[in-house]
């Protein structure tokens, strides 16, 4: 066996196996993962059975605001579209906005946090001042004004969510970076000749990543909520179907006064279930990765 072969062998696999095994022992985490997998699958497969015929208000043929029945499991909306089709179709944009916003949040937050934690001088101080400034800004009005400036639509909502939520990640990463940098292996790396970039990328980042992963699953949940909020407030693309826009049109089409609970509840419950799924998954990963939490429920 050569050294190179030896590198790819058991320990890392073992660690992965250990991770999977302890994750499997957490029923709540499994349930969360199952929910997410189901929604993900539905969202991905949606184009196979939902198309223009079901979504275009001009082409649909169903009755208006009809309650649940055999042919329309969750009833129909003002235009006669099947609610269950809308909920499934809406998951596509809600999930993708949530996930893309989270990726942006994590990238921005991790970069700022890492730099602020590593460079202790004016760079770090400056970055933390900017972060504090963003924390102090009320996030909803900021998101609304951003979405207003950037124009309505998915892209501006995604950016608005990312801009208002990266600060939490930045704070978290900075704190963890400070903790990691105090450890002797960073000194050793420096004595071996590592520069700032190498220390950040090779030593600090790998030790910060698990924490970021955990927090990002929770960020997805809040990003989906923010998306629904912003769309509900009318900042989304009026032509696209998301859970937030369903809630908004249900509200504006008078579903409440008409007593059309089947129009109002499904998107809300879908949001609830997905957010719960992400939260349960995140908590489970957190417990598995953080040895100090082992044994606590």
């Amino acid at each position, binding site marked *: *066996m*050569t*050294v*190179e072969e*030896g*590198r*790819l*062998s*058991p*320990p*890392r696999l073992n660690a992965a196996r250990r991770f999977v095994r302890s994750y499997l022992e957490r029923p709540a985490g499994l349930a969360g993962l199952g929910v997410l997998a189901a929604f993900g699958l539905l969202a991905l497969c949606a184009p196979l059975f939902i198309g223009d015929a079901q979504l275009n208000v001009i082409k649909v043929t169903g009755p208006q605001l009809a309650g649940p029945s055999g042919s329309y499991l969750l009833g129909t909306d003002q235009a006669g579209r099947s609610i269950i089709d809308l909920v499934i179709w809406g998951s596509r944009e809600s999930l993708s906005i949530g996930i893309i916003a989270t990726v942006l949040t994590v990238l921005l937050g991790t970069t700022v946090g890492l730099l602020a934690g590593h460079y202790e001088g004016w760079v770090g101080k400056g970055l933390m001042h900017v972060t504090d400034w963003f924390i102090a800004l009320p996030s909803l009005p900021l998101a609304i004004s951003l979405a207003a400036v950037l124009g309505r639509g998915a892209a501006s909502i995604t950016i608005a969510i990312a801009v208002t939520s990266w600060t939490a990640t930045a704070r978290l990463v900075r704190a963890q970076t400070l903790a990691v940098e105090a*450890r*002797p*292996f960073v*000194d*050793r*790396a*420096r*004595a*071996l*000749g*590592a*520069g700032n970039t*190498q220390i950040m990328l*090779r*030593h600090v980042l*790998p*030790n910060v990543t698990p924490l970021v992963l955990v927090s990002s699953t929770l960020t997805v949940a809040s990003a989906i909520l923010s998306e629904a909020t912003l769309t509900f407030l009318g900042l989304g693309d009026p032509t696209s179907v998301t859970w937030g826009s369903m809630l908004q049109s249900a509200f504006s089409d008078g579903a409440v006064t008409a007593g059309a609970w089947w129009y109002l509840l499904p998107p809300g419950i879908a949001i609830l279930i997905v957010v719960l799924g992400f939260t349960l998954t995140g908590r489970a990963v957190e417990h598995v990765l953080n040895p100090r939490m082992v044994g606590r429920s």
Partner: protein
Amino acid sequence: MNVPALEVRDLKITYPARRGRGPARAVDGVNLRVEQGEIVALIGESGCGKSTLARALVGLVKPTSGQVLYQGTPLNYSAKALKKYRRHTQLVLQDPGGALNPRQNVFDAVAEGPRLHGLTDRLNETVRTSLTRAGLRPPEEFTARFPHEMSGGQQQRVVIAGALALDPSVIVADEPVASLDASVRGEILKLILSLRDDLGLSALVVSHDLGLAWNIADRVAVMYLGRIVEMGTVEEVLLRPRHPYTRALLSVLPDSAKDWRPTLLAGEPPDPTAIPSGCRFHPRCGNWAALSGPDREAAGCDRRDLPILSGDPSALTLTACHLVPGEHV
């Protein structure tokens, strides 16, 4: 005359003042030389500045004044020059568990130095040779392990292997065995000795342990509150200590010579933010306390500053004390 492998001249390192106290003079004027192929032990109690001195030697701390010289050339603190310097001088830290990144396996930990310096042509061979030299045999058995899968002694060998991978000429070891079991301690010390014999490495070993100095060092320097108070060959310093501080340290060893009465150091533990005037050891010095009247006045330990020891390695011993005659060649 040979050029010393590593030398410090009039080194001073001062940390800025904090919370109403004065600036901390961690290292306050030190001359020290490590000759080629020589092992020097730097002994002192915690807080005396020995770790700061060690970190300055590998360029991790920039001196406030004075110089660090590697083979006669003063250290240049530009990033590029420092990186070049770091191929030659390596640091071994006290806590091997903490000195290894928990997410790197042994191969990556040892290969880190060569990779940083772009020496990746024969990386496998370099790593294997370094592990073998550090006593991890066969190396293949260890390359895939992670730090938590090894014992403390093995971890320290990995750290040493990582240092050897750059083919250094000097190793600065800061308490290399303090956190290891007694049985492993001897093995690591033997390893350092054999590296000197086989590869001609020079080493500065920082420790609070006089026994360690006796076992591996050629010369010993005793540090007190930022200054070296006594230095010389191991035999001179440990068998015929002259400075009252060294004598006090040695007198409390269980198997020290019978005719020494144990001297317990009284008074304040040293504080680098408030260094006493005159001889910095005088508030705790038994010899000074025993003096009275005109003798005490004549000695003047509390008034007269002591010169900084020259660090000349050809002297058998050097002592910084008003009450003890200075150099013995």
